[in-house]
């Protein structure tokens, strides 16, 4: 079925400065094009018709994975999801992110889709958001005025809305080196295994205490159950510095259930999503704790 886009004026800046000046000149009317897997679909399917489209893929120096032992991981905004999925260092040291990346769309989509696009598109179901928030990632935002760094947790404002202001570009994702004994898991739930936007997703990233007995610094992030990726703070708190037990896991699941505030849509009802939050949070915690369901 042919879905023709409306015509637009196309720009291909070769430096960030050029990109900023175009953004400022066409104030609010220009759409940034990275992989295009969200933007072009919106233009074809949902009648989005920007007057100007600016492809940023010709700007050098925005596509990289830099890792510094004991310090941090830096990912350029234009890095594709496929590159993240297959990166050895991300697989080894930040496996929860590689895991999430591998669940986004198909290989064809992942070969185009960028991490910057996934975050800036700000879908409540954005695949890479829960694990990155759980890993305490920050984003570097660049504009003519300079750079600013925002914790990813504060980046999302609502469905499709972020703190990015006119004239700003997401440049880099910074993931701090995790403490020793940190484990993470990401579970995506959809009707089928492949090619499905998450109905509900859960990332749990937690650090085991020095004695190895209790989970400290627990991060539970829920996808697709609120206007933005959601931290289940009450659920996190009950787990903090406690010895894991089945009754405690039940309680955590119940709290996460209460914190989720999903909508009903064509993929699932709100009630069903809430139930699935409970199931998936419990499953995630059992898995990182090495417990099997009794």
């Amino acid at each position, binding site marked *: 079925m042919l*879905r023709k886009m409306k015509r*637009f004026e196309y720009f291909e800046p070769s430096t960030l400065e050029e990109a900023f000046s175009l953004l400022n000149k066409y104030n609010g009317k220009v759409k940034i094009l990275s992989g295009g*897997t969200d933007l072009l*679909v919106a233009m074809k399917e949902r009648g989005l018709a920007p007057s100007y489209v600016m492809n940023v893929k010709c700007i050098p120096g925005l596509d990289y994975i830099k890792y510094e032992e004991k310090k941090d991981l830096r990912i350029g905004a234009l890095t594709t999801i*496929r590159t993240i999925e297959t990166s050895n260092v991300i697989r080894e040291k930040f496996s929860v992110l590689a895991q999430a990346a591998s669940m986004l769309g198909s290989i*064809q989509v992942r*070969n*185009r889709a960028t991490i910057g696009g996934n975050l800036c598109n700000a879908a409540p179901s954005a695949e890479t958001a829960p694990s990155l928030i759980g890993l305490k990632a920050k984003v570097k935002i660049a504009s003519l005025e300079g750079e600013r760094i925002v914790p990813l947790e504060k980046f999302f404002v609502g469905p499709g809305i972020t703190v990015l202001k006119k004239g700003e570009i997401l440049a880099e994702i910074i993931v701090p080196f995790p403490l020793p004994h940190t484990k993470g898991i990401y579970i995506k739930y959809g009707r089928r295994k492949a090619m499905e936007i998450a109905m509900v997703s859960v990332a749990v990233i937690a650090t085991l205490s020095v004695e190895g007995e209790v989970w400290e610094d627990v991060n539970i992030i829920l996808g697709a159950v609120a206007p933005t990726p959601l931290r289940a703070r009450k659920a996190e708190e009950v787990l903090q510095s406690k010895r894991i037990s089945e009754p405690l896991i039940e309680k955590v699941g119940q709290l996460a259930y209460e914190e989720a505030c999903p909508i009903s849509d064509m993929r699932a009802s709100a009630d069903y999503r809430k139930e699935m939050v409970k199931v998936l949070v419990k499953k995630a915690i059992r898995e990182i704790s090495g417990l099997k369901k009794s």
Partner: protein
Amino acid sequence: MIQKRIQLKVNGEEYKLEVKSNDTLLDVIRDRLSLTGTKRGCDTGDCGACTVLLEGKPVNSCLVLAIEADGKEVITIEGLTKEGKLDLVQEAFIEQGAIQCGFCTPGMVLSAKALLDENRNPTESEIKTAIAGNLCRCTGYVKIVKAISSAAEKMRKIRKS
């Protein structure tokens, strides 16, 4: 600009052509170059019928602007046949009966080709991941997976001998 002269290398041949900003790579391949082996299914990234190799990697050509493919190399299904001889993957699809209506086949074959270029010994699960973005409404996938693993086997044999 709303129009641009671009250069594309498709199946080894250089093409220079004027494209509009809103033309996709798929539009150009089918309607301008008349390479209609590449199919248009959904036009929004869901079905994989439009899969081509862009710089060696499988992508949905319905989600790539022609204008951004300027200077790049594209392989379509027509490019797999060398001097009238089908590629091993194509042969395997025929031998295993992995084709019914054939609409998904060009995309399926290119996804398989990309997998086997990187991995000569894929597991069944790796094969399924590789074709997860290619929908087939006829075969039920079993024969397609079989065809890909049989092509892999043949490739391994050729390399050994």
